[in-house]
């Protein structure tokens, strides 16, 4: 089962790199949806020694939300907005992918310096989780469309979840489902906000959200 786990983790890291170099928003939504599928697989693979009802419910909930509900919701938002591509990102796609490779190296270096009290399921868990988290943070600050920022938030959340599923045993179901519910409502509320942004500004470029400041230029 370690093979399954490692394959999923490597795919997760690769999809994050792919996302860093993608500009078409439908493609970005698909990549994040695929990450949702990977997280569902990861949940099962991490608990392969004892697959209980709890694991199955959790994996199913993750799959339903991250691979089906979110992509559907965000595609709907995208259809409403007259935009197909990310607009002139603050950091170009090539530079972003380059930064991603550096980030991957940094994640491996960092994780080697964080000795775990108990041996992890796979040595890839910490570096991949860190890398995905960093990729999410990087995308949030470097992309301009509101939709892309929500996708980046999801990637960040995926990275954190990877950390949890790979390292932490016995998180209670109530907490896990509570976290999922929060993320669901967060994406839902953000989706509504994007709908309003599009109606108000005729665009979903967050650079236009710059009226509020302390000193008028």
């Amino acid at each position, binding site marked *: 089962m370690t093979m399954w786990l490692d394959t999923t983790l490597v795919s997760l890291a690769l999809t994050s790199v792919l996302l860093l170099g993608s500009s078409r928003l439908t493609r970005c939504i698909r990549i994040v949806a695929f990450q949702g599928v990977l997280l569902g697989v990861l949940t099962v693979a991490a608990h392969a020694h004892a697959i209980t009802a709890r694991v199955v419910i959790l994996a199913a909930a993750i799959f339903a939300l991250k691979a089906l509900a979110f992509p559907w919701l965000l595609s709907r938002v995208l259809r409403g907005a007259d935009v197909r591509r990310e607009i002139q990102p603050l950091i170009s796609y090539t530079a972003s992918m380059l930064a991603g490779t550096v980030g991957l190296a940094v994640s491996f270096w960092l994780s080697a310096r964080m000795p775990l009290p108990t041996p992890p399921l796979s040595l890839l868990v910490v570096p991949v989780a860190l890398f995905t988290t960093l990729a999410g943070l990087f995308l949030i600050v470097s992309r301009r469309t509101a939709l892309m920022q929500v996708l980046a938030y999801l990637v960040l959340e995926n990275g954190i979840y990877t950390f949890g599923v790979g390292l932490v045993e016995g998180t209670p179901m109530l907490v896990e489902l509570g*976290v999922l519910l929060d993320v669901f409502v967060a994406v839902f*509320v953000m989706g509504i906000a994007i709908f309003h942004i599009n109606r108000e500004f005729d665009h979903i470029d967050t650079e236009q959200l710059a009226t*509020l400041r302390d000193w008028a230029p």
Partner: protein
Amino acid sequence: MSLLALLLVPTLSGIGVFFVKNDALRRLVLVLAAALHASVVAATWFFPPTPLLGGWLLLDRLGQLVLSVTSLLFLAAASYAVGYLRRERRAAHQDFEEGLLFTNAPEATFTACLLFFLAAMTLVTVSHRFGLLWVAIEATTLASAPLIYFHRHHRSLEATWKYLLICSVGIALALLGNFFLAVAASAPGGAPIPLVLDDLVRGASHLNVPWLKAAFLLFLVGYGTKMGLAPLHTWLPDAHSEAPSVVSALLSGALLNCAFLGILRVQQVCAAAGQAAFGQELFVGFGFLSMAVAAVFIAGQPDFKRLLAYSSVEHMGILALGVGLGGAASFGALLHAVNHSLTKAMLFLVAGNILAAYQSKSAADVRGVVHVLPASGVLWIAGLFAITGSPPFGLFLSEFTILKAALDQGRSGVAIGYLVLLAVIFVGMMTAMLRMTQGTPGTQRNGAPVPEPVLATLPPAALAALVLILGLYIPPAVRGAIEEAARLLE
């Protein structure tokens, strides 16, 4: 049972108001739910509630303090909201800053979100399971975001978007902190310690220290974003100034405390593990930075609601500083949290009255408040002196306690820096806000008094009275509770 009631009253009435068509009835439900919540909270002071879910939901002194302030402010805000919503019932408004027309969000949604917001904050104060605490803090963000976008124009939308995104990302980092804490608690050989506050405090000596420190950092950055500690405060002035005043009062007075409580919970674990000093140094640093940033932005700030928002950043800095110094200063910080909440909520409610009468957020446009709005004008002056820490108000006492603790510990550098920043902020606030009360009202006003409904002045007046009482005499029961809460942080 009372814990369950505290959570269910706002949740169920929140769901209920969605289906109420009649505006007056819906407002009545809001006030009744707030009053019921407040009376159950009051009852917890006499009859300690039984823990629920095997100790996951538990009301200790620290939680009770924050919960009581939250519930009280909500009651004041709910009463104020009745008059506010009645005023706001027009179909479309003229935006006073840019002259655009805009509508309001449906009142049912607004009321429901207010009640869900209360439910989420209640859950924050009673959660002893770290995962549940996280869920509750994120839920406060989600319930309050639609409240900021009540006036549907592009500025409030911008504020909502920044609030949602920045706070969600910050809180996501706190989730990583949760997992780090879980790693710290999974000692080799032996069962992992469950992530319940009391278990962690009891088994603190077995925690893995480097991971615990890393977890603390993530919690501090994550919940610190929500608390508005500089340099993570960027969303706060926008959200607090663009939200309707009644929401600003809750965001500043109640929500910031809840985020602070989240950080204090981790500090409790660190202190039990013998790592209190690590967190305290960080608290002092973030505290000073927040006060300094606030001082810079308060000086010359033209918008009086943003001024109040930056003042919140300042006071969050003071809270962090107080907890960072520890000992008597922790007591001062908790007392200050209570005082600040009451005063800031009251000021935002009064700011709402001024805004309604003058239709401007610019301090330069507002003149002669004491003539046009006599009651609000007097409250504004009182609140101004209170928030800047002048005697005889409660904030003077709590700020002085922190100063004295710093001097007693021989940290004169900290004391001097603290005093200088307080003085700069005092001057900045006074020059901008005192001028609003005097002088002749501008051209659009002929200076005749505007009628002030009781619902718009009584809630802030009651809060002002409490701050004054706390400055003159702290009831022994309250003092004992705050002392007990402060001991939890040692």
